[in-house]
């Protein structure tokens, strides 16, 4: 009885540990291939376009609405303590340190991790990955490395753009709905914002980009057969990327700001 209970508890734990181990090995393998030739620059360029450029609208829209909502919330909360004047600085710090990278990362996870997993998963079930191998091409190097590099490079840029648009969203709400003076709002934003507020968010963005592409590639390459297998891989990629982004965000915040 006890043995059976322990067994039923232990099996999923062992499976979870094995899954983590497989992901870590996959990540190490991808990183190991980044600096070794051959380099697929055309694939890298296409991935930068797909992951970076085409994600700009969704990241921008997310940022502008978040910045606006943040300004309203901080104004409403601050008014309880007669601290309405903190709106510009808190919007700027909140966007650059947290909301810009996290919400941007989650939106890119939804858009990019899903599409990478579906594309590579379909390639797997239609034997395109086997075909790559028979054509003396390492699928990890050809498919995963350009996507992971592109996501790691483009996410900080997306975060930076998202930060700027988010702050602009707060400014727009501030001057149109909360009676802030435009010049005073912008001065307050610039005065209180420090370089590391922005830098920490960009570092987070790079880490989140790595996670997004890694999860997309890992689940795509381990997709089961058929439409259901590809669907499951896509779902797993988005869920795991989102959870890992939130977990990594907490860890990075501890490392950057706990003191």
């Amino acid at each position: 009885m006890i043995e059976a209970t322990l067994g039923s508890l232990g099996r999923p734990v062992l499976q979870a540990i094995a899954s983590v181990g497989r992901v870590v090995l996959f990540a190490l393998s991808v990183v190991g291939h980044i600096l070794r030739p051959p380099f697929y620059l055309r694939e890298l360029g296409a991935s930068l376009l797909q992951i970076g450029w085409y994600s700009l609208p969704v990241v921008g829209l997310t940022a502008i609405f978040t910045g606006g909502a943040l300004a309203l919330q901080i104004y409403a909360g601050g008014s309880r303590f007669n601290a309405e004047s903190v709106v510009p600085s808190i919007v700027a710090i909140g966007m650059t340190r947290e909301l810009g990278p996290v919400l941007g990362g989650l939106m890119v996870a939804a858009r990019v991790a899903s599409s990478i997993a579906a594309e590579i998963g379909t390639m797997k079930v239609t034997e395109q990955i086997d075909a790559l191998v028979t054509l003396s091409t390492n699928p990890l190097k050809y498919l995963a490395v350009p996507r992971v590099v592109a996501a790691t490079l483009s996410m900080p840029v997306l975060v930076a753009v998202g930060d700027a648009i988010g702050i602009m969203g707060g400014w727009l709400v501030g001057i149109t709905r909360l009676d802030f003076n435009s010049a005073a709002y912008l001065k307050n934003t610039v005065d209180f914002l420090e370089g590391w507020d922005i830098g920490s968010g960009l570092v987070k963005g790079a880490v989140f980009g790595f996670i997004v592409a890694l999860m997309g590639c890992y689940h795509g390459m381990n997709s089961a057969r058929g439409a259901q297998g590809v669907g499951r891989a896509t779902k797993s990629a988005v869920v795991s990327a989102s959870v890992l982004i939130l977990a990594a965000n907490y860890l990075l915040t501890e490392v950057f700001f706990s003191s």
Partner: protein
Amino acid sequence: MIELSGVHKRFGDNRVLQGVNLSIASGTSMVIIGGSGTGKSVLLKCILGLVRPDSGTITLDGQDVTKGDRDAFLARFGMLFQGGALFDSLRVWENVAFRLVRGPTALPKERAREIAVEKLRRVGLKPEVADLFPAELSGGMQKRVGLARAIAAEPEIIFFDEPTTGLDPIMSGVINALIREIVVEMGATAMTITHDMSSVRAIADNVAMLHGGVIRWTGPVGEMDATSDPYVQQFIHGKADGPIESVR
């Protein structure tokens, strides 16, 4: 020569290959027949190293295929996949020239394109097809492009995985004739897996039947009809009754 000796492979409880022994002489065309799910594709993938056998040895010209320079080994092979396995994101000519523009002996893009167009012509496709994407082609055209890609680098050994599956009888005949022509013309060693008997008769020098995880029968295609092996007889005549169990 490709030689398989005591090759075993299982997936969980499913013992797919249970000691396969087979020799394929250089310059000959071997066709592996057998029912669906008997492990024909697994056998082929074991030779290419896409699937690792649990035990047994596979040698190519006396060299263990799992050892040595993998890229050099794969450079000797061309393969036509069952569904074509063309890369959706690349144009037809880029699919055909995929190997030609990569690796230490990579050709300039223009030269690779010329070769790709020539190979497309060889399989009966017009040069205009070169700039289309695979999704714009019919199933038969995709097979031809897959065939052009398999022969683009003029490999010594070509594998064909179910080359006529999903094609109408006329297109099947065209593909079979093309395969036979190309194999003879190139002097290549060919290994084809199929359960299409018209393909067997059109392509094969020798035939091997895989059943129950082992090679049940092997011999020249001319002796296939005369064999007394009940498994082969049931298979080639498509009989429901016989030693091979069928699910009804």
